[in-house]
C-alpha cells in the first residue's frame, strides 16, 4: 500500500465555503464591517514586560531571570577566562576527559581544547551513543534574551539539534554583542541573520529541562539537561 492522496483541495474548499459569512467580531454584537487590521509588527513588542534601557541593566535582568530559572549565570571578563572556568567545572563535576561534547568553533570546541580536553565533536554522522554518554556539552549560541533569561540556539550556531539537549549539562558561551533586550529583538536578529532561509531548528531555551507533572512539583532534568550554565563574556 502506498500513501493516501492529500485532501488539500477538499479542505481548502470547505474553508472557503465556511468563510463566506464574515465573522462576528468577538465581544461586539454586529458582524464586522471589515476585518480588524492585522496589527503591525511594531505593535507586538509594545505590551510585553519592560526591559531596562542600559546594557548593565540588561545584564542584571538576565542574571536575575537565570537565577529564578535555576540556571547558572557566570559573567567573565574575557574569552580567555572561559577555559579555566570549564576546567574548574570539569573537576568539580568529575567529567571524564573524553566526556565533553562540542562543535567546531571559537566559542565552543576551541575553548574546550584550551581547557585541556579533547572534545567529542558533533559532526555529520557522529556516534549518537557516544554523545548520549557525554557528561556535558559546550556550545555557542545565537543570542541571550534579557527579558526572559532565555538562550537562543540554532542548528547553525550551536552544533545541530541533539548537542544542546542530549547531555545532562549544557554550557553555553555568549558574548556581549549577543545579549538582546527582548523577544522581538531576538526575532529581528534572526530575521537579519538569515533572511527567510532559517536553520531547520531554532530553539529558545529558558532554563534547564523541567517538569511539574508529578503533583505540580518542580523537577529539573526531565528529559534534557539537568543543568544549564551560561558563561557570559562581557
Amino acid at each position: 500500500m502506498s500513501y493516501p492522496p492529500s485532501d488539500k483541495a477538499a479542505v481548502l474548499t470547505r474553508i472557503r465555503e465556511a468563510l463566506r459569512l464574515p465573522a462576528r467580531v468577538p465581544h461586539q454584537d454586529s458582524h464586522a464591517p471589515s476585518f480588524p487590521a492585522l496589527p503591525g509588527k511594531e505593535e507586538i513588542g509594545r505590551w510585553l514586560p519592560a526591559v531596562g534601557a542600559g546594557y548593565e541593566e540588561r545584564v542584571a535582568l538576565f542574571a536575575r531571570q537565570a537565577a529564578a530559572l535555576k540556571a547558572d549565570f557566570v559573567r567573565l571578563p574575557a574569552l580567555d577566562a572561559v577555559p579555566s572556568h570549564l576546567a574548574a567545572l570539569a573537576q568539580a563535576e568529575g567529567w571524564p576527559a573524553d566526556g565533553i561534547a562540542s562543535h567546531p568553533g571559537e566559542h565552543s570546541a576551541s575553548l574546550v581544547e584550551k581547557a585541556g580536553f579533547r572534545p567529542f565533536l558533533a559532526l555529520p554522522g557522529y556516534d549518537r551513543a557516544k554523545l548520549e554518554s557525554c557528561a556535558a556539552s559546550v556550545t555557542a549560541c545565537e543570542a541571550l534574551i534579557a527579558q526572559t533569561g532565555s538562550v537562543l540556539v540554532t542548528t547553525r550556531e550551536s552544533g545541530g539539534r541533539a548537542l544542546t539537549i542530549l547531555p545532562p549539562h549544557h554550557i553555553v558561551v555568549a558574548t556581549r554583542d549577543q545579549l538582546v533586550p527582548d523577544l522581538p529583538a531576538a526575532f529581528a536578529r534572526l530575521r537579519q541573520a538569515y533572511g527567510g532561509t532559517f536553520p531547520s531548528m531554532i530553539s529558545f531555551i529558558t532554563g534547564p529541562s523541567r517538569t511539574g507533572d508529578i503533583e505540580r512539583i518542580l523537577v529539573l532534568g526531565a528529559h534534557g539537561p539537568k543543568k544549564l550554565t551560561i558563561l557570559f563574556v562581557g
Partner: protein
Amino acid sequence: MTGIVKLFRRDVRGTTADTPRRTFIRRALSGYFAKRYPLQDAYADWQAARTTAAAIKFDAVNRLDTHLETFARQAEARGTKVFFASTGAQARDYVLALCREQGVRSIVKAKTMTGEEIHLNEALEKEGYGVVESDLGEYIVQLRKEHPYHFVFPCMHLKRGEIRATFEKALGDVGSDEPENLTMVARRVLRQEFLKADLGISGANFLVAETGQISITENEGNARLTCALPRIHVALVGIEKVVPRFEDLALFLPMLGTAGAGQALTGYNTLYAGPRQPGETDGPEEFHVILLDNHRTRLLADPEQRDALHCIRCGACLNVCPIFKNIGGHAYGTTYQGPIGSVITPHLRGLQDWKHLSGASSLCGACTETCPVKIDLHHHLLQNRRNAVREKGVWWERLLFQGFGLYASHAALWRFGSRLAVPGLKLHSRFSGAWFDPVRLWTKTRTLPRPPERTFRQLWAERQKQKSPRA
C-alpha cells in the same frame, strides 16, 4: 437521555463527592495562580497584549485558506511533506502508510492532543506498532491506560503514591515516591526509547504561514529529542494553529507560557523548518506535517463562534473554571476539557450529544476573562444552549415556556397565579426534595429560598396605602 449524558451524570456524581481529590486539585493549581498573576502584572499592558493577540488570530483564522496555502508552499520549499487530512481516518491512514513504507519499528511520541483527538495510538497499536508517550504526564496516563485529565497537565489528578504504584506495575521496583526519583526513573526508561525510535510523532502549537515553520512549546525537552533523534518526524497539527508571521511568535510564545503555566517563557520553544538541511549536523531525514480538519471547518462556518478557533490551548480556562475544579477533567469525556472543550466539542462531535456540557456551567465568565486570546467562551456556551434548543427542542419545555408566555402576558392570569403561588410554595417547602416532589431533580441538591408571605402586588398595594394616609 443519551448514553453520553448518563455517563456524564454518573461520573460527575462520583467526582463531586470525592472531596479529598477536589482539595488536591485545588492545591495543585494554587502554585499556578501564585506564579501567573505576578507575571501577567509585569506586562507593560496585559489587556492590550490580549487584544493584539486576538487581532492577529482573527486575521489568521479569517484568512485561513490563504495562510494554509502559503504555509504549505513554504514548508514544501524546505523539503517538508505536507499532507491535508479532512478526517481523523485520513490522518491515521497516512501515518500507518508511512510506517509500512518506511519499515518503522519503534515510535516515540511527544505530546499531541490532536493525536489524542483522532485516537492515533490505538490505530498504531492495532496494526502492531508500539508507541511510547515521552511527555512525563502522558507517559504516566498511558501506562495507566487513562486519558489525560487536563490537556496541559495530563496527570495532575494523581498523587505520587499512585504514580509509583503505576511505575512498579510496569517497570518493577522503582524506589521512593519522591517526584525527583520518579521523574528520573521515567527519564532513564524513555531515554532508551528515544535512542531506538525511528519515527517521532509530535503536535505543534503554531504554524508560521509566512515561513512554513512549525513551533513546539514544551518544558521537558522530550519534543526536542523527538524532533532530533528519529529518522522521521511527523507533526500532526490542527489547521487553526496558524499565525501569519514569524514575528507574531514574539507575542504568542510569552503569552502562552504566562497563561498556560505561569512561566515568562516555557522551557523550550522550538521552530522547525524542514528536515535536516544541507550542511546541518543532524536531524530527521524526513519531515511530514499533517494538517487536520476533522470538523474544524464546521466551527469555522459559525460566524458567531469562529473565534473559538483562536484558541492556543494554554489551558488557563480550565484552571480558573469552578466546574472543572469540581467535576475534574475525566468527567467531560472529551479530548479537550474545561470551557473550551465544552464550546468546541459540540461542533466537532455533534451538538445534540454534547450540548449537556454547555449546561454544565455557572456562566461566571472566569474563562473569558482569563483567555489570552479573548475568546468569548461563556457566551459561546449560551449560544450552544440556544442552538441546541433551536435545532431540536424538547416538547414539554416548549409547552412550559408557551404556558409561561401566556401567563406572563395576561395581567389577570398573573394576579391569580401569583396568589396561588404563595400557599403553593409553602406547601412545597414541606416536602421539597422528598421522593414524590415533582421537581426533585432540582431540589435534591438545592434549597429553595423561604417562600414569601405576600405577592409583590400585595406588597405594593400596602405600601401605596401607607403613603397616602386616609383623608
